[in-house]
């Protein structure tokens, strides 16, 4: 075997890792492939490139040419934010990141390659997976992803968001909107309930006698006291939350007849938003890094997959412990992972991991609340070490300031992700 050793000198890279990869001849720069250009993946790609000054070869594989943020998509439903304000392209992501718009269809961990739908094969030294979520089959009886055109999930933002909004706007006066809320764990714990607030806001203006039904398999949800206070204050009598105790749990849906079946009783509804149970984005399972739960367990100090230390799993797809699945969390985890990867491939300094999260929810125009926590790794998991939440009964000025802050966060995180 003839090998040009010259190229390996000074890269700080383990020669074994290079030898294991097939298309490496004559190439010296370590390669990182990132799958998924969302909150976790776009941040990771940008920080890897930015902080390594061209010493890494960073490829970002993203299926869509434009990313639509789930965060603030509920505000679009409420008529508070334009759809195109949620959309971000990859043209400013910065030099040093090669963006490939294609779907990753396979990962060969032994050969260290990723195969794309277009046939391209990318070799990697480190792989970052941040593919978000997929839906669990059979989670809501009667519903499959094929029914999403009739009963939308709108839990991956984009056309689904627009469809759901159009359906709410087309509801007959006094009609019924039903939400099948998801079981734990799912992305954005307060997300479904912020959505209810925003849909109630939209209906209050154009369809004030409409009814909203939440059918929930959970006994309790994040920021519950804050949401319930707001629903009473702004949307009195409109919102009905049905907990499992009252039949909200085992609900069946009938997309053909637009019915939901609660404790054996079929009820006709006008719009049905089905948010099913969730699992890691499919490519994580195809890569063989998920476990029976459907999520990918990771090392809490680094975000490395427990199944393979050359693969990092970020954001929603990872099972890391106490952090909620959120864009903020994914962004925070991406920074720890990219620092660790640079340390491994380039020998740069590695510091102790720190993570944090804050999630804002809009209850009504200018009335926002937040919940947040900081986290540290223990050997078992990423553990919550401190948390806070907005209080009920806060005054309007504080709630407005909280809303303004959420706008600042949106501007900040999208700049952090996309440049």
């Amino acid at each position, binding site marked *: 075997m003839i090998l040009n050793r010259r190229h390996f000198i000074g890269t700080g890279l383990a020669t074994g890792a290079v030898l294991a990869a097939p298309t490496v001849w004559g190439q010296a720069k370590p390669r990182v492939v990132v799958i998924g250009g969302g909150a976790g993946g776009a941040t990771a790609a940008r920080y890897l490139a930015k902080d390594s000054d061209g010493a890494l070869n960073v490829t970002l594989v993203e299926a869509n040419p434009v990313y639509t943020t789930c965060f603030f998509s509920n505000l679009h439903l409420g008529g508070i934010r334009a759809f195109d304000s949620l959309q971000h392209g990859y043209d400013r992501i910065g030099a040093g990141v090669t963006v490939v718009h294609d779907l990753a269809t396979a990962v060969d961990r032994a050969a260290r390659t990723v195969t794309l739908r277009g046939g391209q094969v990318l070799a990697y030294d480190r792989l970052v997976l941040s593919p978000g979520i997929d839906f669990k089959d059979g989670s809501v009886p009667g519903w499959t992803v094929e029914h999403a055109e009739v009963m939308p999930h709108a839990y991956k933002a984009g056309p689904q968001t627009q469809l759901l909004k159009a359906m709410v706007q087309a509801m007959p006066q006094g009609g019924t909107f039903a939400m099948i809320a998801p079981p734990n764990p799912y992305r954005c714990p307060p997300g479904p309930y912020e959505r209810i607030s925003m849909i109630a806001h939209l209906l209050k203006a154009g369809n004030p006698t409409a009814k909203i039904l939440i059918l929930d398999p959970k006994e309790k949800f994040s920021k519950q006291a804050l949401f319930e206070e707001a629903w009473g204050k702004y949307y009195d009598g409109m919102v009905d939350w049905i907990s499992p105790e009252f039949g909200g749990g085992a609900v069946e849906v009938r997309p053909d007849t637009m019915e939901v079946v609660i404790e054996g009783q079929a009820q006709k509804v006008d719009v049905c938003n089905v948010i099913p149970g969730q699992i890691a984005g499919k490519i994580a399972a195809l890569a063989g890094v998920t476990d029976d739960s459907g999520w990918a367990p990771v090392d809490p100090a680094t975000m490395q997959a427990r199944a393979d230390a050359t693969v990092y799993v970020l954001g929603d797809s990872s099972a890391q412990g106490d952090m909620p699945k959120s864009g903020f969390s994914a962004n925070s985890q991406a920074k720890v992972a990219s620092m660790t990867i640079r340390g491994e491939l380039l020998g740069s300094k590695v510091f102790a991991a720190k993570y944090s999260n804050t999630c804002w929810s809009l209850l009504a125009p200018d009335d926002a609340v937040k919940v947040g926590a900081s986290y540290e790794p223990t050997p078992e998991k990423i553990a919550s070490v401190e948390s806070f939440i907005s209080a009920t009964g806060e005054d309007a000025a504080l709630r407005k300031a909280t809303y303004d802050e959420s706008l600042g966060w949106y501007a900040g*995180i999208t700049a952090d992700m996309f440049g």
Partner: protein
Amino acid sequence: MRRRPLRLLATITLAAAAQSAAAEGIGDAARGADLFKGQCAGCHQIGNGAANRVGPRLTGVFGRRAGRVDGFAYSKAMARMGSDGLTWTLETLDPYVANPRALVSGTRMNYRGLPDATDRADLLAYLRDFSDQPGNIPEAEPTARKTDPDLDPAILAIQGDPDYGAYLSSECATCHQADGSDQGIPSITRWPPQDFVVAMHAYKQKLRPHPVMQMMAGRLSNDEIAALAAYFAMLD
């Protein structure tokens, strides 16, 4: 409250492989399960479907007001403590289990107390598993003890490291934009370092009321704050 000796990281690890976890879990939940059986199970049940017995069910006790389980007849003393705002957390459960009467003088819980701090930590780790999980309910009570940034020798060892300042600042960039634009969250670039340090300490000491910034500053050591002040001062 119990403190295990701080893990001494002689040198800050430069290689990811050698990195060690920072925070400590509450305790050993498996050992706690045995302690629960021996010490508490005679009067309390815990878990799905647990019922009130001599004492109230302890499922979901973390984050709950004292004296608030439906259908349990509490002592007047416990009910009053609940109305006064006593909430069960790591910080309040520990002294209660150590000596119930010391925290709630007139409590009807006829239990002498668990004097050993490690036993209590392990027991509380077990109890914690039956309350809200932060992954689902982010505001839920913590599941580990925070490392004290001002006592961690590993952090002191890397003071003044500009790379460290840059890494720390990445956490701020999610909200404070690096280019200094202010769109609802104030700009923090190009401040005189002195002003920056004073502002951060005001959050750390909870003099400034903002909860996000109290939390961000509260986990930073004095040296880390200084490093950040220097780092942000030179951004343009």
